[in-house]
């Protein structure tokens, strides 16, 4: 191995000091860091609400919080985690930091717009906190009308505005990525030489740009009903509350793919690096990202199978929902095949990838149950659904996000974290996650509905298991905070390419200079090239 590594003299972190140099920066890397801090804080807040929910559900009687308090807890858990953590997580932090580096550009196409996205995100958070401190909100993160529009007496309007504004942050990030990927690639970097992380973000950006405006307008309509007494969804005036659900899920179903696709991009990068092998079926993995994004837009009504939609439209949407399972399966098989004849090593990022495999398999396969009409009628709105989407959105998306964070942490900060603690954390997250959420599948099939403050006694055993597991999970999520912070001062210097990875981002210093590359790189080879030549260059042989 290399010895006597030193941090570069000038890099993006020491190029300017003081708060102003951060708040007015146009550097995508600094903006990514600010996103990282913001969403980490929001993740803690969302985790706090989750802890409250799990604590309440230890006993069947609903004796810890009042029903209203409990309802606010799960609502705010959902809103914080979905809109202020999961949706920005991988794209706004890792995507922002890495896209320009991976394509050999100096920055995103619109650096000022990128900063504006961050500010919009913050303004959205401010609206949410305003609502939180004036009593919270109890509509569930789905804001179903007429409850949200006419009945709930909590802070729907400020939260709706917060989500609306944060939505524009997401749209502008997507727009920036699309233009960057189209127009800013380094010489020689053709579309099929792009890292799969970039492909995944391209698909993600399509969803952000095409889906988010629809939820924005839906929230506007809800807002007019709540604030001005308009009645687009009001059943007493002939309005249709189910229309709200259609419009809501037209975005919010693709939003699930918006969360998982970037994580899948991370998986491809990490997997290739830690097996020192090109991704099996590169173009199938790339196109399956696009297929997921496109199919994701035509399956929304599977959230409405018991909302009185006609039997035949339910069948059409069931059929289409199965179609989205295929590209996900294709990805999974290609990743498995990538391991074949690789040289696999198990540092923390790779452990997260293995964790992702386990959790995403369960999450994806349980999606088949929900797409199957006859079963959905029974498990709809039960804990089965809760378990399923946590497996995908938390198991899949956060495993990918954390894996990516561990993978690129040396690139972002220039330093290594504790290998031992990070492995412990990855294992704890995996075990704790399964303990927490697997029992919920059984609870759901038993018939326990979601969003229940109190429940019949026979569900207690499984609920206690779930709450117990969440403790392990919580510690697993907290550990990285400790060793990442520790690494900032005391971590070993990483050097430009500690994992011997093949991407362009590893060819510049860690941390990179503000302009990313001293000289614009020219790309000649294919992606994920591990030839003896590359190995020699990395001082391996």
């Amino acid at each position, binding site marked *: 191995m290399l010895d006597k590594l030193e941090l570069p003299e000038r890099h993006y972190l020491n190029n300017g000091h003081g708060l102003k140099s951060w708040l007015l920066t146009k550097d995508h890397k600094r903006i990514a860091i600010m996103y990282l801090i913001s969403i980490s804080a929001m993740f803690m807040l969302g985790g706090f609400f989750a802890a409250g929910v799990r604590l309440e559900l230890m006993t069947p009687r609903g004796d810890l919080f009042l029903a209203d308090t409990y309802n606010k807890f799960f609502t705010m858990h959902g809103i914080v985690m979905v809109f202020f953590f999961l949706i920005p997580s991988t794209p706004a932090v890792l995507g922002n930091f890495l896209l320009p580096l991976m394509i050999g550009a100096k920055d995103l196409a*619109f650096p000022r717009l990128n900063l504006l996205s961050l500010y919009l995100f913050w303004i959205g958070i401010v609206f949410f906190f305003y609502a939180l401190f004036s009593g919270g909100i109890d509509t569930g993160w789905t804001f179903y009308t007429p409850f949200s529009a006419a009945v709930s007496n909590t802070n729907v309007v400020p939260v709706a505005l917060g989500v609306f504004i944060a939505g524009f942050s997401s749209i502008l990030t997507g727009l920036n990525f699309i233009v960057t990927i189209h127009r*800013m690639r380094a010489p020689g970097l053709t579309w099929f030489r792009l890292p799969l992380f970039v492909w995944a973000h391209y698909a993600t950006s399509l969803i952000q740009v095409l889906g988010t*405006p629809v939820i924005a*307008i839906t929230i506007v309509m809800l807002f007019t009903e709540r604030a001005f007494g308009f009645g687009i969804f009001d059943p007493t005036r*002939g*309005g249709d509350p189910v229309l709200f659900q259609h419009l809501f899920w037209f975005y919010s179903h693709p939003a699930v793919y918006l969360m998982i696709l970037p994580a899948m991009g991370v998986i491809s990068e990490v997997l290739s690096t830690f097996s020192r092998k090109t991704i099996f079926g590169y173009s199938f993995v790339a196109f399956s990202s696009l297929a997921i994004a496109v199919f994701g837009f035509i399956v929304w009504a599977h959230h409405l199978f018991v909302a009185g939609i006609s039997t035949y439209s339910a069948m059409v949407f069931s059929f289409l929902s199965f179609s989205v399972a295929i590209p996900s399966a294709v990805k999974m098989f290609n990743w498995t095949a990538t391991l074949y004849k690789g040289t696999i090593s198990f540092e923390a990022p790779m452990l997260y990838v293995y964790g992702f495999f386990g959790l995403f398999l369960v999450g994806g396969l349980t999606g088949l149950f929900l797409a199957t009409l006859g079963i959905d009628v029974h498990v709809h709105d039960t804990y089965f659904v809760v378990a399923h989407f946590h497996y995908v959105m938390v198991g899949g998306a956060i495993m990918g996000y954390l894996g990516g964070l561990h993978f690129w942490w040396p690139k972002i900060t220039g330093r290594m974290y504790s290998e031992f603690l990070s492995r412990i954390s990855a294992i704890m997250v995996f075990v704790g996650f399964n303990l927490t959420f697997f029992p919920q599948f059984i609870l759901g099939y038993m018939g326990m509905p979601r969003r229940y403050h109190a429940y019949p006694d026979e569900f207690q055993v499984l609920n206690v298991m779930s709450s117990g597991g969440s403790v392990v999970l919580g510690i697993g999520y907290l550990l990285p905070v400790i060793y990442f912070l520790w690494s900032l001062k005391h971590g070993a210097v990483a050097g430009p390419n500690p994992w011997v990875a093949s991407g362009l981002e590893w060819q510049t210093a860690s941390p990179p200079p503000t*302009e990313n590359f001293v000289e614009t790189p020219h790309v000649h080879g294919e992606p994920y090239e591990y030839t003896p030549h590359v190995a020699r260059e990395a001082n391996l042989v």
Partner: protein
Amino acid sequence: MSDAVAPAEVHGQAVHHPKLQHHFETMEQQKEASTLGMWVFLLTEVLFFGGLFMAYLLYRVWYFDAFAEASRDLDIQLGTFNTVVLIGSSLTMALGVRAAQTDERKKTVFWLVATIILGLVFLVVKGFEYEHKFAVGHVPGPNFHSDSPYAAQEQIFFSLYFTMTGLHALHMVVGVGLMSVITWMAAKGRFSARYYTPVEMAGLYWHFVDLVWIYLFPLLYLVERHN
């Protein structure tokens, strides 16, 4: 899409235009990025209004009679006048972009100011229309008043009317603000035949907002006028 890499000879160009931002290689790349970005933004806007059009479509099919009745309460003369004004403003906008392209500063400013004035005329007329709606109680909500047998569903029509035209008007206000900045920049001589991207982008936005109105006018004012 074509490869983003600029041809070698452009790459080797020695002179850097002062408007070229540091992270772009060439003016062409910068302009292509802006144009693509604007189109993607407009795509987002289409989906944004799309949700409203979806709601409109559903309720118009369900409550056609109520929509026809409520539509007849809108002032078709003012609506037509505003339509003409907006189409006119698209023309002045196009002329403004053309003038910027051919590097005629005074002409550019003139056409941009004309566009702003037409935009303001539209907004003022719209304001009078709104005021009338308030006066006769056609604003949905507890104070809604209608003698028609379809009073309940008319509220849905007017909810959509106010949301759609209100959002459109908001886009107009943003457009006028944008145009004012562009006009000021044009007057200061910030643009040239080689760099007029902001004028062109503002033009795209303005045409889009016009186009939305071209849909809104028949959908809201002309539901069933023949009887």
